[in-house]
């Protein structure tokens, strides 16, 4: 009789991890509660605890092994002969549609015209890019500090602020109590007082508690004061659906903030944009809402090796050039749009993918220029359809691009429901490449 020990999922978004260390060896007797191993997830190093009793029969994955998929058998308790009945037909495994996205083929990617041709690139995760952006700006300007829940000693709930406390100390990397309304107000007030705060929301879902300060205090003060009182604060954190965390933790606030004059709203997709735009956001004299995406944090992209990679706010970017149709998107939707474009390429449809990058001010020109070239537009947005960025893009196309349109503009958004927990329902509720491709076929009359 043997019991299989499988690589556990230790966070909602974990798909694989590193088996950092075995704390037991073959032949050891273990009981429930014993720590068997240390496992590094995308967020932290976790202890893997036994819930069974017996003798470790076989260790199947050596310590130090990276990229061990969740569910892989890593050891066996007992004699190695598995006699347990196979589990009953389980529902489809958890990973959401997003996590299945394969990175688009590099050949299809267009270069960012903001990055000099021939710039050396290195692979970097979005998480590291964001951290580096903050660290570089903190080195550059003593007024910049970061505050939020678990940003310092814990090294960031999503590890985005990892290492900042060590380098900059507790004066500039500040753990707050769980009190969003209060610390958003303190951040805005500190900005009014001449500092450059970066306020991290553990996720933007919690910023609902603080939205009064983001909008009424930060966004409106410069106008109400006749230009006297600035509020150069950055509110940043993950936004949009994560994975299986239910309705209250899965919402895209892009359209909410993007509707507010006085705010800058940025929602980058890849590492280069995350870094270049976060640096620009920190330097901006205006209040910025910087929307990240948890599911993208761990993805690696090309990052230009420049001493000071700062990108312009308010400029969209063509991620893939095409001539038949334009797919407009932002944040995680860009990855899905690129995937859809690759699918469509096999069918002879050459799609252009436009990443808005900044949601306010919106780059109308870039949308209209691409529309004038392809004459067809689909908007892909990981968020609800009503009063969305997609609605706004469609309005822009109607107002100023109507004569160039060969088909109605379509939007592909999440289903108009609070995000469900069940894996199948969640998958059904969130946009994917197949749905984007279907909409593209429709506007191409294919």
């Amino acid at each position: 009789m043997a019991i299989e020990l499988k690589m556990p999922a230790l966070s909602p978004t974990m798909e694989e991890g590193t088996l950092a260390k075995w704390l037991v060896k073959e032949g050891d007797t273990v009981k429930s509660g014993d720590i068997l191993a240390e496992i590094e997830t995308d967020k932290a190093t976790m202890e893997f605890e036994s819930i069974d009793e017996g003798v470790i029969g076989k260790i199947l994955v050596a310590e130090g092994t990276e990229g061990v998929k969740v569910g892989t058998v890593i050891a066996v308790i007992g004699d190695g002969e598995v006699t347990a009945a196979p589990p009953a037909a389980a529902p489809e495994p958890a990973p959401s549609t997003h996590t299945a996205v394969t990175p688009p083929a590099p050949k299809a990617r267009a270069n960012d015209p903001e990055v000099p041709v021939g710039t050396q690139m290195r692979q970097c995760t979005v998480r590291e890019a964001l951290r580096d952006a903050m660290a570089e700006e903190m080195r550059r300007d003593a007024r910049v500090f970061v505050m939020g829940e678990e940003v310092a000693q814990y090294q960031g709930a999503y590890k985005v602020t990892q290492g900042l406390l060590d380098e900059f100390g507790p004066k500039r990397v500040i753990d707050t109590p769980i009190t969003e309304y209060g610390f958003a107000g303190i951040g805005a007030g500190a900005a009014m007082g001449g500092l450059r705060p970066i306020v991290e929301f553990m996720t933007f879902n919690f910023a609902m508690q603080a939205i009064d300060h983001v909008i009424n205090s930060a966004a409106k003060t410069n106008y109400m004061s006749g230009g006297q009182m600035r509020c150069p604060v950055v509110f940043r954190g993950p936004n949009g659906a994560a994975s299986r965390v239910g309705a209250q933790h899965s919402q895209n606030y892009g359209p909410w903030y993007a509707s507010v004059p006085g705010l800058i709203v940025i929602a980058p997709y890849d590492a280069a944009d995350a870094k270049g735009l976060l640096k620009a956001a920190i330097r901006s004299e205006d209040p910025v809402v910087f929307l990240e995406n948890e599911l993208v944090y761990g993805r690696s992209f090309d990052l230009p090796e420049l001493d000071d990679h700062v990108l312009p706010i308010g400029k969209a970017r063509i991620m893939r050039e095409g001539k038949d149709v334009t797919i407009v998107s932002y944040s995680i939707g860009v990855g899905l749009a690129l995937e859809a474009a690759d699918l469509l390429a096999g069918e002879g449809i050459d799609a252009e993918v436009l990443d808005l990058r900044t949601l306010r001010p919106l780059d109308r020109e870039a949308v209209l220029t691409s529309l004038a070239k392809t004459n067809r537009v689909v908007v892909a947005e990981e968020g609800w359809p009503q009063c969305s960025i997609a609605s706004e893009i469609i309005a822009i196309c109607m107002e100023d691009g109507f004569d160039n349109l060969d088909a109605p503009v379509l939007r592909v958004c999440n289903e108009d429901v609070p995000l469900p927990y069940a894996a199948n329902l969640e998958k059904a509720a969130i946009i994917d490449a197949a749905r984007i491709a279907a909409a593209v076929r429709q506007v191409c009359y294919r």
Partner: protein
Amino acid sequence: MAKSKTPSTVAAGDDTFALRSLQDAHDANPRYAASDEQLLTFYEQMLLIRRFEEKAGQLYGLGLIGGFCHLYIGQEAVAVGLQSALDGGKDSVITGYRDHGHMLAYGIDPKVIMAELTGRGAGISRGKGGSMHMFSTEHKFYGGHGIVGAQVPLGAGLAFAHQYAEDGGLCMAYFGDGAANQGQVYEAFNMAALWNLPIIFVVENNGYAMGTAVQRGSAETHFHRRGTAFRIPGISVNGMDVLEVRSAAEVAVAHVRSGKGPVLMELITYRYRGHSMSDPAKYRSREEVQEMRDKHDPIDAAKAELLKRGVAEDRLKELEKQIRSKVNEAADFAENSPEPEMSELYTDVLVERY
């Protein structure tokens, strides 16, 4: 389960917290020993606020001031007594929407305040803020905020900036007895005490949160006690006597300036007018208001004291005349200066161009 003593619980030992020490210090020396000239200055400032607000009420009635307009009449001793104890060069002040008095107490030109009330281009916010949204970064006056209680965490942020910049300044954050029931006030208390921020929280308790009497809306009506849960010492002060206010301010400022963290002051005061110009104030009796006006008016009291000290009545009359003409000038300016240019509609939305 046995409680283990963590470092944080040790750091919060009760021996370091003297709840009543500031109240005792204030009670030991309740009135500030002002010179005749100082008291005269306080009197002048309070009278300017009174006359300015009366004029504002009049202009509102004439339709020259729109929207919400909250007058400070009756509460003058609070802003004057407190702000006279601050160092204008480095301390910051923030308040809610009943903000005209705090600006006048800082010597900001009544013309640009009144012109803001009438929504003119020459207003201190170029006509784009109005009564509730006025600022003077030059005087470190940070508004002027319309959302009840929002100025409290913002004030804690200003205090944070003082501490961060090590500029020796402190922040004075005013709010009302109504705002004192907002949750964010206590979030700010917690962090201010946790981080030892240089801030004086000031509750201007005028007895009514709009139309709701304090005892109808507050379980603990002694607002100065509300910092206790956060280890913030409180002082209760008679807000109708400018010298008592000033004396208490000295105690609070000394405490904060010496790095001991936040103080919560409660100023017991009274507003003679309604919550705003559109409030008929039916929730209290005429007699109650009259009693305050007759027996507790801070301006009458200061005047009586000046006369008692031997300051010539003619001098006070001359002063009153000057204030009246200053206010009339401000009103004329506010009435006759032009509305903002249409081009101002789209200015100051953002600082930079993108």
